[in-house]
C-alpha cells in the first residue's frame, strides 16, 4: 500500500459527474492528486470500465468494494477488507475505513435531494434524518472520527447544514473543537465546515463548486453544494491547506472562458479534493 510512503496521508476526491462519461478525466485527476479514496455521485460509468482505466499501468491498484449504494460509488486504493460498508440508504452511504495501525474513521458520503425537488425549507426538514443516521453509525462503530462529504445541494450557510438538529456544521474550527453545545437541554455535536473558506472570489480557487443562474430575485448564482464536514475528533488530522476545489485537470480548465463550470465538456459541479493525515494509533 503506497499510502504509507506519504506519511499516512490519505487523499480524497469527490466529484458529482452529472452522468457525464468522464472516465479519462477522472483517471487523470486521480493520478495527478494521488487519490486514495474516490467517491463519485451521478456516475454512469460502468464500475469495471473505470477500474480498468484507473489501474492501467499502475502499480498501486484501485478496488471497487462491494456495495449497494445506487447514487454513490466508491473506489479505494486499499484492499476492500479495510473499507467496510456500514449503511446504505436513499441519499447516504456510510463506510468505515479500518487501516492497520491508524485510527479508524467513518466516511459518510451524501448526495442530498436537489432544490429542483425540495425547496430550502423542506431540505432543512430532511436534515435531522441524516444527522440521526450519522449518530447511529457513530454509536455502532464506537467513535466520532467522522467526515461527511458529497453534494449537499445546500450551501454551507443554509439552515439544514448549520442548525443543531441537522448537520450542525459551523465555520470556526476553534469553536467546534469544544465538540458540542446544549440546545434546549439536548447536547448536539458539531461538525466543522471548512468550505466557508472556499466561498466567494476572495477565496483561493473558484467562488463555489456549482453555478446556476435563474432569473429570480434570490439567486446566489455560485453555490458551494459540494462540501466536506469534519467532526472535531478529526481536526488534528486535517489542515485547511489540504482542501481544494479543483478547477483544472492537468492544466485543462474545468471552467469556460467566462470563468463558470464548462458543463458541456465536463460536469456542472467542480471536484473537491482534500487530505487527511491520520495518526498512528497509540
Amino acid at each position, binding site marked *: 500500500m503506497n499510502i504509507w510512503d506519504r506519511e499516512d496521508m490519505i487523499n480524497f476526491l469527490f466529484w458529482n459527474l452529472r452522468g457525464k462519461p468522464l472516465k479519462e478525466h477522472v483517471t487523470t485527476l486521480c493520478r495527478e492528486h494521488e487519490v486514495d479514496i474516490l467517491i463519485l455521485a451521478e456516475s454512469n460509468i460502468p464500475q469495471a470500465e473505470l477500474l480498468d482505466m484507473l489501474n492501467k499501468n499502475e502499480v498501486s491498484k484501485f478496488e471497487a468494494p*462491494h456495495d449497494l449504494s445506487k447514487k454513490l460509488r466508491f473506489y479505494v486504493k486499499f484492499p476492500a477488507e479495510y473499507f467496510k460498508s456500514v*449503511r446504505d440508504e436513499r441519499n447516504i452511504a456510510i463506510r468505515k475505513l479500518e487501516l492497520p495501525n491508524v485510527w479508524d474513521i467513518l466516511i459518510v458520503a451524501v448526495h442530498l435531494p436537489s432544490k429542483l425537488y425540495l425547496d430550502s425549507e423542506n431540505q432543512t426538514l430532511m436534515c435531522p434524518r441524516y444527522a440521526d443516521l450519522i449518530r447511529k453509525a457513530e454509536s455502532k462503530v464506537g467513535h466520532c472520527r467522522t467526515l461527511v462529504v458529497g453534494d449537499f445541494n445546500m450551501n454551507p450557510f443554509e439552515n439544514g447544514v448549520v442548525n443543531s438538529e441537522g448537520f450542525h456544521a459551523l465555520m470556526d474550527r476553534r469553536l467546534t473543537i469544544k465538540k458540542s453545545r446544549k440546545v434546549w437541554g439536548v447536547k448536539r455535536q458539531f461538525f466543522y465546515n471548512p468550505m466557508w473558506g472556499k466561498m466567494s472570489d476572495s477565496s483561493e480557487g473558484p467562488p463555489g463548486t456549482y453555478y446556476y443562474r435563474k432569473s429570480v430575485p434570490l439567486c446566489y448564482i455560485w453555490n458551494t453544494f459540494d462540501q466536506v464536514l469534519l467532526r472535531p475528533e478529526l481536526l488534528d488530522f486535517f489542515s485547511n491547506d489540504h482542501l481544494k476545489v479543483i478547477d483544472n485537470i492537468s492544466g485543462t480548465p474545468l471552467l469556460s472562458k467566462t470563468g463558470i463550470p464548462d458543463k458541456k465538456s465536463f460536469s456542472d459541479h467542480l471536484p473537491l479534493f482534500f487530505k487527511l493525515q491520520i495518526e498512528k494509533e497509540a
Partner: protein
Amino acid sequence: MSIGDLWGESPPPEIPKPVEILMEQASFLEKKTENQLMGNVLSTARPRGSELFNYLLEIVVPALDDYSFGVLRISFELMPIYPLDVEDMVHDKEYTCNDEDHLIDVLKRILSSDEVRKVIQRLLWQIGLEKRTGI
C-alpha cells in the same frame, strides 16, 4: 359508590398496526434467509413538534458487521393512522396509503420487487464469499 371509568375510549394498541405489519415482514425475511439477514424496524427522527411517527424497515447483516440497508420508511399520525405515507427508498418513490389494504399492497410491491430481490441476493452472496475467503 364508584363513579365508573372516566377515561373515555380505550387507548390505541401499544404497537400501531402498520408497525406490527413491518415487524411481521421483518421476521419473514429472517425465516426465509435462515437468520442470515435480519429485518429491523426502528423509530427514526422527526422534526421537533411534529405529530408524525416515522418507522424504518431495514435489512441488517450480522455476518457483515451488522451492515444495514434501508428499505422503506412509513410516516403516520396516531389518530387517525391513515392516510399513511410510505417512502420506498429502493426505488426513490413515495406512496400515500388510505387504508391497511392499500399499505399491504404497496409493501408487497416494494418487498417483492426485482431491486429488493437483487439486494438480498447480493448480500447473501457476499456473506457466502466472506465465509469462504475469511475476509
